């Protein structure tokens, strides 16, 4: 290998209650693709954040191009030619591609020789030149809010290139992308390496590492397990080192026994507040004992579909639940007629973060006996109920039913929502992105829970961006693209690649 560009020596970082990085030392070579692999909570994002100056380490040293450096802010990192694409893009939604890229480094012209103003013409030309050089499919004048996720990601990459970054950090770059988009991103990453850049790739997906990385550091619970040469190490070995134990990737999934139709959609359409059609005449049926999955790239109308079912947005068309037309019913009426909904946005929609566990668990039933008697809440009953569910669904909360939900971990917050929804004994359960952001253990347990629901005769509608989840859990799959259902098929009869093509609208 060639020279070392970045060396970490004995880096440690602790946060209240957790050691995120424990004495980590490693070297990264110029011009390689170096991966950080690990589960959620392994400390890989923290380590990357330290390199990018977002956190300062409690102990240890960073040596960049042979010199010890203090990187105490992202600004300093950028000065040192380090760039980072964050998992949540840091883009201004109502700005153009050009304005986003030049933000903080605007070319200036002098009006009347003195007044400094932004030289938009020059900026635009520079940005367009970069777009052309790396052959990104973008226009310098596009507004960010009009771009899809993968284009926005390219804007983030351009931001780094505009600042002449030499070390490029990618934090979980493929989490929101379709298989085809992942392929093109990985191709871009290879192209960047060819252009002489050094790349740090943070991921928990082994396949990607197999595809592009040269070397890979495996981390677990704050420790560096080891650094492996990707070419010569088997996937199974890396997977085992990553989770620290043998994992069964298999779900316990018995053959499906379909019962009667539980949910029937007839030409459901949603038009949003800006008069844009988000869902166009969707029709399908979900039976008892069936997991029906809706696959699609984010923003293609699946959230609108779920919200329309729950009665949260205006819609036209018919929704028939258990033979009853609920299209005009209120949210509460729909819940009462047997609809449970685990929403995508846990903090924004699913939970009252400042309420305690009890009050969150009764949020859909607080108004009726035994939780309320006339106008009055029955606190004791609710509390006993909460204690019961905490045990039954294994929700970990420090102060029991009185724990404020904000202080709980993401996985336990999700379990709380699932406990609340499943315990209403609804006939139809809608899961939207149920495992997003959770680690492998929690993910598997939730997927198993979905299958258990289906085995017990419930109808399940699963909306997920993760194809692997869709393929392993669902019995039938519908693909949604641009608000249209483009393909409905049994899960057994479609491959990952095909599914990806439908999701991108390549196939109709």
């Amino acid at each position: 290998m060639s020279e070392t560009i970045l060396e970490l020596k004995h880096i440690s970082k602790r946060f209240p209650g957790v050691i995120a990085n424990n004495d980590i030392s490693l070297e990264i070579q110029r011009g390689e693709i170096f991966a950080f692999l690990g589960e959620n909570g392994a400390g890989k994002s923290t380590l990357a954040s330290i390199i990018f100056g977002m956190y300062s380490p409690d102990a240890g040293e960073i040596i960049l191009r042979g010199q010890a450096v203090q990187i105490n802010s992202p600004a300093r990192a950028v000065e040192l030619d380090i760039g980072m694409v964050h998992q949540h893009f840091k883009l201004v939604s109502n700005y153009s591609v050009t304005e986003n890229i030049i933000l903080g480094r605007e070319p200036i012209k002098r009006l009347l020789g003195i007044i400094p103003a932004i030289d938009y013409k020059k900026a635009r030309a520079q940005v367009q030149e970069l777009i052309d050089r790396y052959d990104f499919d973008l226009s310098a004048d596009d507004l960010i809010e009009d771009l899809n996720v993968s284009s926005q990601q390219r804007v983030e990459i351009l931001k780094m290139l505009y600042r002449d970054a030499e070390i490029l950090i990618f934090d979980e770059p493929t989490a929101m992308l379709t298989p085809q988009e992942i392929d093109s991103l990985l191709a871009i990453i290879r192209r960047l390496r060819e252009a002489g850049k050094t790349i740090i790739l943070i991921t928990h997906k082994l396949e990607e590492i197999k595809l592009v990385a040269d070397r890979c550091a495996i981390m677990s619970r704050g420790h560096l397990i080891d650094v492996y040469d990707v070419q010569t190490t088997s996937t199974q070995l890396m997977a085992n080192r990553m989770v620290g134990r043998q994992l069964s990737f298999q779900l316990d999934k018995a053959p499906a026994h379909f019962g009667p139709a539980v949910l029937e959609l007839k030409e459901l359409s949603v038009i949003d507040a800006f008069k844009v059609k988000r869902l166009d005449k969707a029709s399908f049926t979900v039976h008892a004992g069936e997991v029906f999955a809706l696959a699609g790239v984010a923003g293609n109308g699946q959230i609108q579909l779920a919200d329309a079912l729950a009665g949260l947005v205006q819609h036209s068309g018919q929704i028939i639940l258990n033979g009853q037309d609920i299209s005009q019913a209120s949210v509460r009426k729909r819940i009462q007629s047997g609809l449970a909904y685990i929403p995508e946005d846990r903090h924004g929609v699913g939970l009252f973060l400042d309420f305690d566990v009890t009050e969150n668990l009764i949020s859909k039933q607080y108004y009726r006996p035994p939780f309320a008697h006339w106008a009055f809440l029955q606190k004791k009953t609710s509390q006993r109920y909460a204690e019961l569910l905490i045990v039954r669904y294994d929700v970990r909360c420090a102060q029991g039913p009185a724990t404020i939900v904000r202080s709980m971990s993401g996985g336990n917050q999700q379990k709380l929502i699932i406990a609340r929804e499943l315990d209403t004994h609804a006939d139809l359960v809608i899961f939207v992105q149920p495992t997003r952001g959770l680690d492998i253990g929690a993910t598997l347990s939730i997927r198993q829970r979905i299958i258990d629901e289906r085995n017990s005769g419930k109808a399940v509608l699963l909306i997920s961006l993760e194809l692997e989840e869709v393929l392993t859990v669902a019995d039938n799959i519908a693909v949604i693209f641009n608000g249209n259902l483009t393909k409905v098929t049994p899960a057994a009869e479609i491959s990952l690649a095909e599914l990806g093509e439908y999701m991108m609208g390549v196939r109709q």
Partner: protein
Amino acid sequence: MNQASSETKSRSTNWLLRILRYPRTQNLVIAILAVLMALVAISLVIVIIGKNPLTVFVSLLRGSGWLPKPRYASGRSMLTDFLGLLDALTPMIFAAIAVAIAFKAGLFNIGISGQMLTGGFLATVLIGYSQLDAVLAKPLVLLVGALSGAMLALFVGWLKANFNIHEVVSTIMLNYVVQYIVSFFIKGYFIEPVSRQSHTVSVASRLTLVNVQIGAVETRIPLCFLLAVGLAGVFYLILARTRLGYEIRAVGSNRQAAEYSGISSRRTIMLTMALSGAAAGLAGVTYYLGYYNSIMPGDLSSVGFDSIAVALLASANPLACVLSAMLITSLSYGSNYMSSVADVSEYIASLLIGIVLLFSACSGFLKYLVNRNNLAVDQSDDREEPGSTPATGGD
């Protein structure tokens, strides 16, 4: 994991921090702290203008009936002052719980003074100028006040629920509209030429009994004081113990999550505003047909604005509102005596209220500082954050 660190922490931290951390009394302690800091700040101001802070504070307390004055006019005593304070306190309690209950639903009702004026004006015109007996008139005054205040606030809630108009803007606009309309009617039809105020209301309709002799002492009896305290209790119970209270807190905590749970946020917003407005209307009648007996045209009562301070200081807890209303009212009620005896401007009292408010606005930050090391750090879902306890795997 963090036991070691918290142990060293608690050994090194002082008693104040430990008191501050105790969750049940935290809000109270922080409120007291805000008041104390404000007292220190205002003392500095008083020293700067060359007066003795202690004299000023003592004269404030004397003016508001908490301490005996050195001498009294004939037929007056400390009881006169204290009952007078309760008379001024009554509308303040109503107004403060009006702010508080709206705040719990995430609504900032700063239109209290407008709703007070509406209630007070309509009750004055409809009942106060009638020949009705006291038995009939007094309950009717309360009813008219509560209803008219509720209607005005309901309109604000309706604008918010249906047109997404921020209640701060709409209530302020309505404050001015009400103020000018009432002024128009009073100047045109109900003006007392000498006092330039509206005609006084009938004794039968007035909610304060004035010139009551207790022994040799002349006092006034605020008839609705207990009603105000009682209503504070009722509001507290509504919030903590009823379905409606749950809905109000749910909408205030997260409107989207409330909708998702099947709670109609529009209905809740309008109901809450109506409740808030009703309390404000009661504040209006106990002010304009109790503490006073006429209305000054073109003027909004300062009670409406001070009640915001009261509710903030009480962290929007209706029961705590009674205490903080007592404090704030004592300050403004005693300021008259203070300014004449200690020779400082009456504005000192309102300045003190302003500073108390500024400090209590920082209370959230203080709480955050104090609790920072106590709670597990909130972690977002999508990335490993500091403080994330690795989620369980074995189930």
